[in-house]
């Protein structure tokens, strides 16, 4: 076993045991902490009452005479740790599983020896993130009793549905070597358009859906045209579109939200026998179409080609402009589908809807092993990436982690995913 591996293994073991220890310790002193916290709360309440009495000019207890709650410094530490106790438990278990995986990998490698030939690197990649997803689910089911229940599973599906649809479109864009920052704004604007059509113009649900899909695709087409015909960098073109569409969303309603959609429309996100059936069917359809398109169509193959090497693609007679427009239209269309899901679920359209959605989508794609340089990636990878992000936010919610730390954890996971990708690529270079 290599030295670096050994250090990593020991680190995993020590940290894992330590974190679990802390968790157990805080659990053990949970009663005392609760007592202390109750005392603190009581004192705060008394102080507040005194204050109130003083303001109202009544006779009040002298605050100075209230006894200080005695907290030893050890207890302070325990209380601070206790607020992270859930995270510690998960992390500790993760690290231990990591250590086991390292040992298993080592034994496996020694048994297989030199025979193993890497044939398709992308498959390896997917196996890696799939294992990560499984481990994640495993320790969340240990950490939370709710995680493995059917209703939670359905919740996760509903929660990820928006990001799911967008990330599929984003996969096309990123494989082609581009990026689409305008997806969040596109959703908001298309959502408002749908609401206006149904509420103010009295357009039927079916026509609303058809027209708004055309509209969101048109936004994609504008992105694509700017990039394909005027050679704007995708980052700039879609950044501009992001701002324009968001601004338009605020402008059309003067910033006001639109509430209550027709029942036929909200039914899309409704539940059949407690299952968000239509949302799930839509996700399956989008996934299947995306997968089929990348694998079995010319334009899908060309998406990989222009992302991998644009000059070679051009020289091979590929119409670059057409393919580029295509990928941004796909992304735009996916925004339209996401707007339908979101607006029907919220039963309202807000100009602030899906703010920052592009980041979650890009994160899912990147975690799924698609290269930001373009040319490499897969829909299946993205699927796993979406699930990882979805399961993480669900898990953190169940564990009662606040929004702030949640965002930090998500950011960390994205960075770690990319670091792993970079290291893997370097290793592949080495053994070429």
């Amino acid at each position, binding site marked *: 076993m290599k030295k670096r591996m050994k250090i990593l293994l020991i680190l995993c073991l020590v940290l894992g045991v330590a974190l679990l220890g802390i968790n157990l310790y805080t659990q053990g002193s949970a009663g005392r902490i609760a007592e202390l916290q109750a005392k603190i709360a009581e004192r705060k309440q008394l102080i507040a009452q005194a204050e109130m009495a003083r303001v109202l000019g009544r006779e009040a207890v002298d605050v100075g005479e209230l006894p200080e709650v005695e907290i030893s410094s050890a207890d302070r530490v325990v209380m601070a740790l206790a607020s992270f106790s859930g995270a510690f438990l998960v992390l500790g278990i993760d690290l231990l599983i990591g250590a086991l995986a390292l040992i298993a990998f080592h034994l496996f490698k020694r048994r297989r020896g030199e025979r193993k030939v890497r*044939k398709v690197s992308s498959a390896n990649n997917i196996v890696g993130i799939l294992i990560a997803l499984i481990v994640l689910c495993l320790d969340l089911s240990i950490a939370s009793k709710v995680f493995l229940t059917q209703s939670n599973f359905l919740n996760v599906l509903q929660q990820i549905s928006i990001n799911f649809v967008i990330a599929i479109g984003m996969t096309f864009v990123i494989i082609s070597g581009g990026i689409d920052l305008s997806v969040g704004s596109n959703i908001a604007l298309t959502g408002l358009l749908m609401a206006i059509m149904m509420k103010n113009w009295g357009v039927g649900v079916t026509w609303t859906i058809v027209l708004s899909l055309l509209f969101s695709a048109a936004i994609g087409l504008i992105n694509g045209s700017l990039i394909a015909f005027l050679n704007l960098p995708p980052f700039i073109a879609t950044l501009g579109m992001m701002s324009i569409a968001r601004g338009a969303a605020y402008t059309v309603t003067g910033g006001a939200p639109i509430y209550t959609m027709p029942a036929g429309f909200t039914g899309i996100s409704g539940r059949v026998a407690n299952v968000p059936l239509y949302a799930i069917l839509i996700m399956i359809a989008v996934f299947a179409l995306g997968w089929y398109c990348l694998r079995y169509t010319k334009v899908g193959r060309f998406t*990989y080609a222009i992302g*991998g090497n644009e*000059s070679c693609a051009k020289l*091979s007679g*590929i119409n670059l402009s057409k393919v580029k427009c295509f990928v941004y239209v796909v992304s735009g269309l996916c925004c339209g589908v996401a707007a339908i899901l979101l607006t029907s679920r919220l039963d309202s359209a807000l100009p602030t809807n899906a703010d920052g959605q592009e980041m979650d989508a890009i994160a899912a794609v990147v975690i799924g092993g698609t290269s930001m340089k373009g040319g490499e990636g897969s829909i299946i990878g993205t699927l796993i990436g979406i699930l990882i992000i979805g399961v993480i936010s669900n898990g953190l919610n169940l564990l009662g982690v606040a929004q702030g730390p949640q965002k930090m954890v998500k950011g960390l996971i994205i960075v770690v995913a990319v670091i792993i990708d970079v290291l893997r690529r370097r290793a592949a270079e080495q*053994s070429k």
Partner: protein
Amino acid sequence: MAEFLQMRGITKRFPGVLALDDVHLSVERGEVHALLGENGAGKSTLMKVLSGAYHKDAGEILIEGKPVDIRSSADAKKLGISIIYQELNLTEQLTVAENIFMGRPIMRNRLMVNWRQMAREAQKLLDDLGIDIGARALIRDLGVAHKQMVEVAKALSIHSRILVMDEPTAPLTNREIDTLFSTIRMLKARGVAVIYISHRLEEVMDICDRATIMRDGRNVTAVNVHEVTIDEIIRHMVGRELKEKFPKIKIPLGRELLRVEHINAGKQVRDISLSVRAGEILGIAGLVGAGRTETARAIFGMDRKQSGEVFVDGKRVSISRPLDAIRAGLGFATEDRKGEGLVLTMNVAGNITLATLGDFAKLGKLSLRRERETVREYIRRLNIKTPSHLQLTRNLSGGNQQKVVLAKWLLSKSRVIIFDEPTRGIDVGAKIEVYNIINELILAGAAVVMISSELPEILGMSDRVAVMHQGRITGILENDGSLTQETILYYATGGDRRTA
């Protein structure tokens, strides 16, 4: 006396392959040592072990008799080992001086760079090497030959004692090669040990003292270059006799398949007119920068034409992008394999079918089965060494990558194919395979335009030779057996005898 550099029993395993098996190499100071072998013989791997890019699994490296441990390129640099790769490692937007002192600028104090002194020292290095470049020139304004010289100067500036040159002459013209060789001789006089990797054996005979020949990751032999013939070296390299270097076939010519008239495109393509008939190979010779590649690109629609007409099979066609050219029945195998020839992130199958993907689609659905069968057939026919049709092309060796590019255009059933430097950087055995592929094409009634910097190749394979100089065709010569390299050079230098 102990040899200056010794590599002993070097072994390197990759998953599934033994890339180096007990390889030895020893080089003395002031020696130019050739490292020879076909593609995939392990030359590059060995050099990567030397430069710290790869870690060896077994064996030892000694410098001046002392074992050294090279774990990174920084270690190699400290020991005075420099490598000049085929793909030069320079920053285009910076000046010559900045590139030479990259990463260790001469400082005025702790914060400020002493630009003036840096330029002065760079200029001195260049002057000592007898290179006529200004230290303040931008790299992107230099030709390939000059860029290479900047790399040499850079290597010298860090006091390299061992300099590895990987195919340094591939992009150079004959005159530039002469300059390179005089530079190499100067390095030799200074006691630098030069390891010289090349597929051009004539040059090896010219410049090298000894040669180590490798095959399939093993040493075959080490020879004193002056005591052997080229044929013997080739025999060692390929392990079999190669009957003829250029398997030229002459067949009766058919209709005129491609005619271009008065094409102008930028500075490099001036009033070009040429034609080629079915069954014919038209060679295009010229010095680097003569506009040969640019002409091909203009014909093919990669670059914009200002004027001129293209006729395919007698019919005038309008070509404003490569797609038009492909539809008209043209193919263009570019010289820049990695830059334009291949999508390195795609697999062999994807690359081979890239220009003809429509043929594998029925009602918009690709038939992966039919694609696989076709690709496998081409892998067999062209003898492409790859574990599977799903192997990524970036994992193939240079010669096999080139064959993938050729396969793409063979598959396109183009009637006119332009080959730009079809055998650059590939080994002797693969070269002959490439020539045979070209022969197959003309036998099938195609017309071939072959751009090449290697005059023996031009003379060995072409029926006619168009010679270019500064964007113009200075002569179209019949290759009837009496044509010589000197005549071609005469036209390639603009017909001016003093410079020829």
